[in-house]
């Protein structure tokens, strides 16, 4: 029987702060995919999302001593990634305002992610996912963040409240409003259960 030793994120960052770099690698391995999915839903571009996740880990590396154990490590790292993603979106919006007259399109073409599932189901599946992604990007920023954190990343209300620094009641009401807004944006999709 395999013995499983669970070291918490907070213990790992403490070890990293004390100079153990292996602890940092473990944190990277724990969070890299989660953060990629979070940031990707935000910016809609896989490569860009991966760059932002790299920047997030670089920030963690450089500012490791800024972390205090009063907050959960996940809260801290999601906050960093969220800020970087938002800043990237702002940058892009400024660029888009400048270049929209040239391209005449509101959004660049959606690039569906590569997945390992079977090819047949992906004709409709990819279209549906593309539409969901498009709807997410059409949401106002505050709803977009909340829907990604709650319904895609499945974080707890408490954790979302800490990451966004808003009261739990506000988180709950925003989740509901974001869902209703999403549903409205996706109403053209065929209901398939």
């Amino acid at each position, binding site marked *: 029987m395999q013995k499983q030793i669970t070291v918490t994120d907070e213990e790992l960052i403490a070890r990293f702060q004390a100079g153990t770099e292996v602890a940092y*690698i473990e944190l*990277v*391995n724990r969070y*890299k*995919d989660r953060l*990629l*999915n979070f940031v*990707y*839903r935000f910016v809609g571009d*896989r490569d860009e*999302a*991966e760059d932002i*996740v*790299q920047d997030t*880990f*670089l920030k963690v*590396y*450089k500012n490791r001593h800024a972390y205090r154990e009063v907050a959960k490590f996940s809260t801290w790292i999601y906050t960093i990634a969220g800020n970087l993603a938002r800043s990237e979106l702002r940058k892009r919006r400024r660029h888009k305002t400048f270049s929209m007259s040239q391209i005449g399109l509101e959004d660049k073409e959606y690039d569906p*992610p590569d*997945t390992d*599932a079977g090819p047949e189901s992906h004709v409709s599946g990819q279209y*549906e*996912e593309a539409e*969901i992604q498009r709807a997410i990007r059409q949401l106002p920023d505050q709803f977009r963040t909340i*829907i990604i954190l709650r*319904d*895609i990343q*499945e974080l707890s209300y408490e954790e979302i409240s800490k990451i966004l620094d808003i009261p739990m009641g506000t988180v*709950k009401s925003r*989740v*509901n409003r974001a*869902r*209703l807004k*999403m*549903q409205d944006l*996706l109403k053209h999709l065929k*209901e398939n*259960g």
Partner: protein
Amino acid sequence: MQCQLVLDKYTAYCDYDLTVTEHSAIENHLMECQGCREAFEKLGSMVKKLNGLAELQVSTDFNERLLSKIAHLGSAETHTVWYKIPTVRTSGYAIAAGVALALIFSQWMNPSTTNPTLQTNSSLPVAGEISNNPTSQPVLAATDDSTSNLNDTLKMTEPTPNFPGQQLRLVNQTP
């Protein structure tokens, strides 16, 4: 109960985050209102889809690239340190050198201000005597001693700046 009010409570209803009375009121409404029932079903289906969106994975070389950036970051930090410290040091040296040159120059221009005569320490290999001379031209005179060239005495009649490494002591000026 109004339909919009029911929709506003959708998440709280799913999370069992309502009072028993509120929960029952919504259930009763759903039994009667087909529109709200369908809306709840669609919302539930959408949340399920969001939960099940394809999970992306980072590239296989993600860690490698990250560690390479960190290594580069380390060397950049080293360079910063390398540039910072000498800047402070050299500026200090430059100020000290400037002050020293100014002192030497002022002494050179106005030799009469130098009252004491300096003589090198006798422990040094070459015995030299420095005496104050009001003339501005330095004169280096050697008194030839025919018995031994090794005992040549060098007399410098020009006040000379103090060079590092020379051990100097004050001597009484001979009239």
